[in-house]
């Protein structure tokens, strides 16, 4: 499953655990890389800081991005991703904790592909994945056996 990585950008450990659990429980067996703030997410994506030397040619298939993050917030991460040719086309699903109109509108303005409310409502996430053409997520849904 090399390369089929989901990057989860989430500062709240509870939400991280619940999100990973929801994905696993629905048989998504992808590698889920977790980062805890916006700066770490940027370092990960661009191979800098603690991720120096990471092969940036290997980018995640989808980024689950929380908006309210320490250091660099989610909207800025999104903006920087869309400004860089290496990350421009990576699908981004924004995680929101509410339906605050402003967040959703800003996310779409900055190039988010979809949004789901936290903790990941799995069905909504699948809908988003379908729309994004991430068929592999659904393929993985079928148990191996």
């Amino acid at each position, binding site marked *: 499953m090399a390369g089929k990585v989901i990057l989860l950008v989430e500062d*709240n450990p*509870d*939400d991280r655990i*619940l999100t990973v*659990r929801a994905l696993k*429980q629905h048989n998504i067996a992808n590698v889920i890389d977790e980062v805890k703030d916006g700066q770490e997410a940027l370092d990960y994506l661009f191979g800098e800081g603690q991720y120096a030397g990471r092969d940036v040619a290997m980018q995640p298939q989808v980024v689950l991005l929380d908006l*309210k993050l320490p250091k660099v917030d989610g909207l800025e991460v999104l903006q920087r991703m869309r400004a860089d040719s290496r990350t421009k086309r990576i699908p981004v699903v924004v995680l929101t*904790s*509410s*339906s*605050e*109109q402003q967040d959703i509108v800003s996310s779409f303005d900055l190039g988010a592909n979809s949004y789901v409310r*936290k*903790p990941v409502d799995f069905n909504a996430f699948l809908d988003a994945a379908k729309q994004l053409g991430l068929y592999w997520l659904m393929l993985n849904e079928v148990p191996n056996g």
Partner: protein
Amino acid sequence: MRKWLLQSFFRQVSLILVAFSVLSISGYAYQNYVDLKHQWRSAINIQILHLTGFAALMAANDLRYEKYFDLWEKLRKVQNQAAEEEKGALFLIKDIVVLDNSGNVVGSSDPVRHPLLRRYDGQIPQSSGEMQIAGSGRVKTAAPIIFGGERIGSLVMAFDIAPFGRFLRQHLRDFAVYLILMTLATLLFGLALARWITRPLGSVRSVLPMLGSGQAAIPSLSLRQDEYGLLGRAIEFADRRIHESEEQIRMHRDHLEELVKQRTRALEAANKELEAFSYAVSHDLRAPLRAIDGFSLALVEDYGDKLDDAAKGYLQRVRGGAQKMGRLIDDMLQLSRVTRAELHYAAVDLSAMAEQIVHDLRAQDPHREVQVSIAPGLTVSGDAGLLGILLQNILGNAWKFTRDAREAHIEFDSRLQDGEQVFLVRDNGAGFDMRYVSKLFGAFQRLHTEDEFPGTGIGLATVQRVINRHGGRIWAEGKVEEGACFYFVLK
């Protein structure tokens, strides 16, 4: 003329003064003329009677002794003497005739006109009397000629009083000239007087537009000691008072504007804080709830086999509590959003909106069988977002409270009432007791227990705010177990 007069106080005063003086002068002049005429006429009368009497006395002797030549001589002398005094005289002696008792002429100053020993051919006035000969300017007088106590004849004198008429006419002409001169004089005087009286009014008028400037000064008036002085000083006083009041009002207004600015800034700050607070609520308050709910679920799903039913029940209650609080937060945020959202007016198709909402409700609750009738084409001008929230809440309530109804029915329609379009949403659900209708739209006010129908008590408060934002009205009717009907009007 009337308008011309009413427009100017100066004209009115002038006219009154001139009319008064012309009337009084001409009245006086006329009275004077009548008196004069009368007095002079009396004087002339006495004179000519005396003259006649005197002539009769003079003629008596000659008549008695029949000295007719002497008589003629004397008569002529009298007439000539009178002719010599003609200049300045008011009457002339035309002729003098002496008659005997039988009416024959026995003496005449003009024998050609009245030949002797002929009957007198003219009229004879009564003795010691006078008579006017109409249209001739002539007057005749007669006097008895007495000798030794016995009447021996009469003397008749004819006078020409035309000079008196000329004198009167001259007098009248003088009066007329005098009257015209006096009228001109009073006219000039009257105009000057009127001008003198009304000119101060002009200065009042010129200063009135300055009232309130604090600089209205009318020294020409206010320095006077008379009533105009009072007026002038009153106007200057009023001007100062108005000026002071305006200054005060200006100060108050400036102060108010400053106050409004301060309050606006405070309000903006409070709004920002509120937004920040809402944001924090929506993000931070929710995170622990998610953890409580999520991990409770994880416990049930992952360790269900190790928990007994009581433990599972408790966990279910934990989840229920967390979810309820989540809904409360959602509803409160919606309420605050409704309050501060900017309104964007547009034509909104409420019918289509209601169809969509009912469609969503059916999708969420597929086992419910609810008959919904929505009148087509109900359009209104308003904010689509807020009106969506409004219908969502009202229709959501109708949906919720018809849960236990047999053959649940929900209706969305409108009707015209007192010229207004009144929208209504009617259901045949649980309804409510009209005694509590006043509590219906208050935040956190509920008419049902959580066990009966779950809810936060914020929905109708939100609806009320949407209505308020649109300047409309909402009211409700209901009956327990029979249903409720919500009416609303949008401006």
